[in-house]
């Protein structure tokens, strides 16, 4: 399983945490598609707490955290 943690506005309609089968995603960007999140709506992507890129691979047991851009003032 891969644990996906959503933050801020990405929680709307998705909750805080979801789990998906490891076979459902080979790269972090597959998780975006799985949860219908446009790439530009993820500004910070952490895999197991480390700053990562959408093309980085994910595997069974990983924790993937997704943060949207926060930019108002």
């Amino acid at each position, binding site marked *: 399983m891969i644990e996906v943690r959503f*933050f801020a*506005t990405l929680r709307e309609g998705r909750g805080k945490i979801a789990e998906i089968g490891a076979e459902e995603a080979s790269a972090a960007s597959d998780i975006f598609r799985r949860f219908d999140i446009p790439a*530009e709506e993820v500004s910070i992507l*952490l895999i197991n707490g480390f*700053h990562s890129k959408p093309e980085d691979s994910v595997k069974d047991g990983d924790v993937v955290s997704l943060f949207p*851009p*926060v*930019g*108002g*003032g």
Partner: protein
Amino acid sequence: MEERYIRNLGALSEAECALLREKTVLVAGCGGLGGYLIEMLLRLGVGEIRAADGDRFEASNLNRQLLSAPALLGKSKAEAAAERAALVNPDVRFVAVPAFVTEENVKELIQGCDAVLDALDNIASRRMLARACSDAQIPMIHGAICGWTAQAAVLLPGDGLLETIYPEGAALSSKASLSFTPPFCAALQTALCVRLLTGRGIEAGKLYVADLLDMEMASLF
């Protein structure tokens, strides 16, 4: 020590209060974040505050912008900030600049500053300000809000943290903001600013993200 700063003592030393009186900061933007940042910096007794914003108040600002009021619709935000400064702490040198921070004026605005506070409302302007601060070797205290979420970070010259926070292509999807999110974010930024200006030290490269809906605060990177 002046009586107006007595309650700073215990949390800050007399020497730290005196140090703040010698510092100069720029608040880039006098809207949601900027209004509260200016208020907090004035009451702390920072020596010189420059405040820049080319915008004027409109009705949609009233739900969250401290300096806004129905009677001030159409008024320059920077001029409203100057009037507030004169009212709250006339001992602070206050320079109101009724213009947006741009490539053309940014160098002059930040020159001589000990810190620059980001109260801007878009990613492109933040990138421009961060580049200028980095070039001038001035720390920039980033803050941004969206809905129930606030984030803050100290950007040190050359650390590239803003590019990590906003990668190429990142786009803002919501302009929502509630009355309590800007003051919360401004408080994070001001606390970071005081730590920086008094030499208490900051943890470089950290982004602090607060979710006021779920009452969570995380420190990233």
